[in-house]
C-alpha cells in the first residue's frame, strides 16, 4: 500500500518520536509513506485566529500537491489534520486559492493516522505483525479535540466517543480503560501564551486517567502528547500532588508490540521517563 504523507512542522522537532514511530510502524506493516513534495505549514494553530483566507489557503496548497501525487493523504498531527480537512471541505465547496495555480477536484482524501492504521491497513495485518502482547498495559486512549471535532469537518463517526485507538490498542492486547475524557481539551494552543490555564486542563486529564485506573496514557497528537508528557514535574511542584504517568504515542506502542528495536529509541525522547515502567511491564 502506498499513500501520501504530511508530517507537518513538529514531527521533525518537538514530536520527533511521533514521526519516527509512525514511519517505523508503517514500514513494518508494508505501507509506503510518500512524503508530500515541498509541503508547507498548514497554518495551525494561529492562521485561523489571524485571517480566514490565510487559514484555508495555506492548508489548501498542500491538498493541491496531494492531488497531483494522486494518493490519499495520511496526517499524523491532529491540528494539521483539522486544518487540511477544513481546506478539503472549502475547496470542494468551490473555494479558490488566491496567489497560486488551482487544481483540486476532491479526488484525494485526508486521513488521520489512527484511523488509517485501523481502518485502511486493518486489524488483520496489524495482528499478523504483533510479536509481543501489550496485555500488561492498562492505558486510557486520549484522542484530544481535532481528529473528532467538529464532525462536519472531520467526518468522525462518533465525535463524542471515538473508538479507533481503543480498538487498535485492544487488538494488540492492551487492557484499555474506559473514561469520559477521551476528547476533552488539553489546552494545546494555550501552553505558551496562557500556561497556568493549560496546566489546569492537563492536571484534570492526568487526574481522570488515574481515576479510571490507567497506568499510562496513549495519545495521537503532538500537542496533546507534549502537554501531558512535558509538564508533569512542574504541575507536581505547583500543586504538591505527585504526577508520574507515562504518556505514549499510539505508534510507539505498536512498535513495541511489533518488537521493533527502534521503539526503545522513540520512547527515550519523552520528558516523563517511561523506561522503568516499560521494563516492569516486560516490554523492553
Amino acid at each position: 500500500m502506498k499513500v501520501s504523507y504530511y508530517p507537518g512542522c513538529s514531527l521533525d522537532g518537538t514530536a520527533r518520536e511521533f514521526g519516527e514511530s509512525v514511519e517505523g510502524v508503517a514500514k513494518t506493516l508494508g505501507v509506503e509513506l510518500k512524503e508530500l513534495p515541498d509541503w508547507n505549514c498548514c497554518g495551525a494553530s494561529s492562521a485561523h485566529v489571524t485571517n480566514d483566507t490565510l487559514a484555508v489557503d495555506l492548508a489548501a496548497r498542500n491538498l493541491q500537491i496531494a492531488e497531483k501525487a494522486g494518493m490519499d493523504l495520511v496526517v499524523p498531527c491532529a491540528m494539521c489534520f483539522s486544518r487540511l480537512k477544513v481546506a478539503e471541505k472549502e475547496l470542494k465547496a468551490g473555494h479558490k486559492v488566491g496567489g497560486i495555480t488551482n487544481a483540486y477536484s476532491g479526488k484525494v482524501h485526508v486521513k488521520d493516522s489512527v484511523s488509517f492504521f485501523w481502518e485502511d491497513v486493518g486489524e488483520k495485518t496489524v495482528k499478523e505483525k504483533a510479536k509481543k502482547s501489550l496485555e500488561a498495559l492498562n492505558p486510557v486512549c486520549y484522542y484530544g479535540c481535532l481528529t473528532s471535532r467538529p464532525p462536519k469537518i472531520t467526518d468522525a463517526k462518533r465525535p463524542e466517543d471515538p473508538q479507533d485507538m481503543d480498538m487498535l490498542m485492544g487488538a494488540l492486547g492492551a487492557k484499555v480503560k474506559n473514561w469520559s475524557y477521551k476528547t476533552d481539551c488539553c489546552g494545546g494552543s494555550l501552553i505558551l501564551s496562557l500556561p497556568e490555564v493549560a496546566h489546569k486542563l492537563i492536571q484534570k486529564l492526568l487526574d481522570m486517567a488515574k481515576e479510571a485506573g490507567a497506568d499510562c496514557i496513549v495519545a495521537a497528537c503532538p500537542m496533546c502528547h507534549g502537554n501531558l508528557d512535558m509538564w508533569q514535574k512542574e504541575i507536581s511542584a505547583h500543586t504538591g500532588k505527585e504526577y508520574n504517568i507515562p504518556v505514549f504515542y499510539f505508534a510507539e506502542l505498536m512498535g513495541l508490540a511489533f518488537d521493533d528495536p527502534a521503539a526503545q529509541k522513540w520512547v527515550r525522547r519523552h520528558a516523563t521517563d517511561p523506561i522503568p515502567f516499560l521494563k516492569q511491564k516486560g516490554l523492553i
Partner: protein
Amino acid sequence: MTVSELPKTVVPNPSFRAEVEKRSGQKVSACFQCEKCTNGCPLTFAMDIMPHKVIRSTHMGLKEAVLKSDTIWVCASCETCTTRCPNGIDIAHIMDTLRQTSQREGVPASKKNVPVFHKTFVGSMRRWGRVHEMEMASLYTLKAQGLCGLIKQGKSQGFEMMKKGKVRILPDRFKNKGEVKNIFKNAEKKG
C-alpha cells in the same frame, strides 16, 4: 486581568451583529440561549463572559465588552461548542472572527500574550514556509517574558529537549517560499 462587565439594560444595536455575521458567515441571531456551548466549554473557569453571553452580547451590539473580554483570548478552539450547538452555529469560528476584529481595530487584548504568540507563529510560517519551532518559541518567549524569561525557559525546558534530540537548530528546507508569500499577500488583501 480586565474583567468585562455587561450592562443590566441594553438598547440593541444591530450593526456589530451584522458585521460579525458577514465576516464569520455564521448566524448569530439563530442562538436561542440554550447554554449548551457554555456547559460543554472546558475553559469557562478562566472566562469572564460565558460563551453563550458572548453570542448574546454580539447579537445586542455590545462590541466593546466582547472585544475587551478575556473570553475571546482564553478560548482554546477545541470546537466543543461548535459540535454541540443545536442551531448549527460555528461558535469557535465566531471567536476567531472576534479575535480578528479586535486585532484589526487595535483593541488592547486582555490576555496580551495570546495575540503575541499568534503573531510570532504566523511570522515564522511566512518567513520559512514551515514553522521553525525553536525560533518561534524563543522569539515568543523573548517578546512575552524578556531576556530573563528566555534564559529561564532555555534552562528549564530548552536544554532538556535538546538533549532528547527534539530541537532543530536550523529551519527545515522549504523551496517554494514565493508561493507561500503570494498566499499571504492575497489573504492580507482580502482581509
